């Protein structure tokens, strides 16, 4: 059974129809690239899958649970416990150090300060940015910041990581390094990754791709 399923999802923003019958399956542990032209609905679909947006019609299921039938509290528990997020930039809290940023999801889940910081330090090390622990996001480069963001997404060992153009603001050498470390770490923890990208070299880190066009998806079958 797929871990996540979008079934005939429709979603409009006022007059603009962003999704018109989008269906997609995400399997446990796989890296799935979402490609397609600008404005085709990739981010909107990602937000639906992550329970951030609610479809106007159709359903999103996590395992066999319909996200639309959960209470807000249940949905945010799901998001905090099972999902991780990496965006293009601007996701780190500027007032906190890199270490505190990575520890934050654990703190929100109720972990003690010392335990949270110990785990966070391990993750910074895995992403090869241990030396940035005491710096604030404003003091690190774009590529370093993205590696901190990846560490923060992985620290709770989520089942799915949603990444929207995680290397979109980086040059190709830095983007490559982020992808290499990100995907290796995700594969280690067994997390599935839904990766929105328009860069073929980034998509080449995936196991398969799905193409979004005009709010619909053409999905490549998973390899058997």
């Amino acid at each position, binding site marked *: 059974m797929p871990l996540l399923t979008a079934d005939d999802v429709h979603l409009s923003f006022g007059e603009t129809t962003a999704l018109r019958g989008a269906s997609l399956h995400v399997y446990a542990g796989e890296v799935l*690239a979402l*490609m397609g*032209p600008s404005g085709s609905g990739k981010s909107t679909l990602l937000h639906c899958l992550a329970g951030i947006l609610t479809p106007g019609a159709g359903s999103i299921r996590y395992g066999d649970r319909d996200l639309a039938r959960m209470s807000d509290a249940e949905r945010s528990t799901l998001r905090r416990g099972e999902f991780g997020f990496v965006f293009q930039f601007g996701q780190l809290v500027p007032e906190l150090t890199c270490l505190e940023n990575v520890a934050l999801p654990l703190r929100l889940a109720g972990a003690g300060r010392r335990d949270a910081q110990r785990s966070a330090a391990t993750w910074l090390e895995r992403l090869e940015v241990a030396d940035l622990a005491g710096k604030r996001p404003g003091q690190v480069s774009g590529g370093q910041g993205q590696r901190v963001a990846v560490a923060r997404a992985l620290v709770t060992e989520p089942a799915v990581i949603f990444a929207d153009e995680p290397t979109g603001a980086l040059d190709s050498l830095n983007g490559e390094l982020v992808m*290499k470390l990100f995907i290796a770490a995700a594969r280690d923890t067994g997390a599935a990754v839904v990766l929105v990208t*328009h*860069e*073929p*070299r980034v*998509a*080449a*880190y*995936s*196991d398969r*791709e799905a*193409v979004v*066009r005009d709010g619909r998806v*053409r999905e*490549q079958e998973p390899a058997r």
Partner: protein
Amino acid sequence: MSVGFALLGLLENGPRHGYDLKRSYDEAFGRDRALHFGQVYSTMARLLKNGLVEVESEPGDGPERKKYAITDAGITDVADWLSRPEKPEPYLQSTLYTKVVLALMTGRDATEVLDAQRAEHLRLMRVLTRRKNEGDLADELICDHALFHLEADLRWLELTAARLDRLAARVRP
């Protein structure tokens, strides 16, 4: 190679004389490499022998008077060619362009041609990416070179996909 399929595909919208075929080909695909008459007739002779076209005119007429029509086997051959992605290697543009234009001209789904090719390219890019990340610096540099070329092809595919409507308006009969 793709000349044969292109000539065949051009016959899908109706039978034509060799001269007419050459003109349509040059107009659609031959911008910097117009066909020679000899090439048209030798290609048509091969297609005829393979049962992919048939001749409609009276026997005894010269080659320039022959009218060619595509057979069912010919139509199947064009469809197979369009749905079969090209082996990913650099500088495929002219073959892919021919495929896309032919798909549009014959009312087939050109995005399917592009998507199949993207999948094929990505398959190879995944292999190269894995090899690169498991190998030494030399592997890395060699694989990167190939990856940049494949990426360029893919970017061109994306741009073409985004311009299909405009292209269709120009090439549809």
